[in-house]
């Protein structure tokens, strides 16, 4: 009993033990490379599809700029929430973060986009700004007069009976130009992201 007590005290009276007990600090843990971090460029060629910007949930986190080498996405730290959706959305693998690209390749998954346009008919005053501003409409009917009236029904947005009507939502590219040009906040575009497995046609 006495011997064990002495051994016990001897153990804890060691200088080495006391120093460790009082002064030991571990360095702050390092972040492992497989954690999702701010997306980085992989060096692949950006084709300016802007899927990254469409998928990004944080305002001002990503934009695509023109550099002498071509288009290039830029991530803004302080805005980016490191969700990794831009990495998944890019059809060319321009961005990479953590293990996202690896697991997408392994599981053969993609993000697919669809768009839903909602017009609040109580707020719409039929000015036609949206139909004139829409770049898809512009391709179909370059002659469209102001006010958004046109003879063809192939248009994406068209004015009839003094209200904006959505005729072909499947043609929408989700650019939200109409939303920005509506004076009454009557039209809103929702971007719906869906994870799909083994897509037949790769965008």
């Amino acid at each position, binding site marked *: 009993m006495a011997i064990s007590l002495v051994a016990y005290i001897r153990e804890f009276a060691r200088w080495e033990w006391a120093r460790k007990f009082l002064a*030991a*600090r*571990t360095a*702050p*843990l*390092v*972040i492992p490379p497989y*954690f999702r971090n701010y997306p980085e460029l992989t060096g692949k060629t950006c084709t300016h599809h802007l899927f990254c910007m469409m998928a990004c*949930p*944080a*305002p*001002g986190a990503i934009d695509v700029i023109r550099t002498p080498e071509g288009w290039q996405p830029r991530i803004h*730290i*302080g*805005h*980016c*929430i*490191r969700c990794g959706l831009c990495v998944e959305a890019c059809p060319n693998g321009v961005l990479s973060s953590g293990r996202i690209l690896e697991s997408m390749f392994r599981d053969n998954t993609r993000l697919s986009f669809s768009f839903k346009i909602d017009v609040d008919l109580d707020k719409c005053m039929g000015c036609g700004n949206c139909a004139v501003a829409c770049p898809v409409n512009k391709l179909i009917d370059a002659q469209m007069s102001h006010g958004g009236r046109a003879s063809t029904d192939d248009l994406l947005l068209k004015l009839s009976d003094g209200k904006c009507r959505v005729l072909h939502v499947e043609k929408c590219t989700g650019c939200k130009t109409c939303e920005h040009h509506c004076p009454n906040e009557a039209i809103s575009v929702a971007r719906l992201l869906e994870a799909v497995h083994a897509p037949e046609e790769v965008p």
Partner: protein
Amino acid sequence: MTFLQKVKNFVRSRSIHVAYVDVGSCNGCDIEVLACLSPRYDIEQYGIFVHNNPREADILLVIGAYTPGWEEKLRGLWEKIPPPKAAIAIGNCPISGCLFARPHTLVDPPVAKHIPIAAQVPGCPPRPTEILSAILSVAPAIFADYEVKTK
């Protein structure tokens, strides 16, 4: 450097008192500050203590995108902290407003408009490791030789 200054430097490097204030966040960053106290990150082994009393604090962690309710309060809280002091913005919210910086919201980021911010830790939320490293790198820069620098 006087002996007294050396003693002050030594003590200040081992006793950093932290207060945190949430000026309108989603709580994500608060949870990460809380995680710093857990055994895995163990903020106290570096001599950093979370007291949450501005009168005792050296470092103020500001979390959140600054809602109108803080208009008069944050400034007063910052002035209650005795010098030397530093404020660190934790998360995207005090830097840019993060997801709340949209039209028709009431938040008023960045917090640097309202009180001086010494460092920013971006992320939504930032990892506890990043919060820890920020405190550890800001504290010596502000507190070492404080009396000499401000003379």
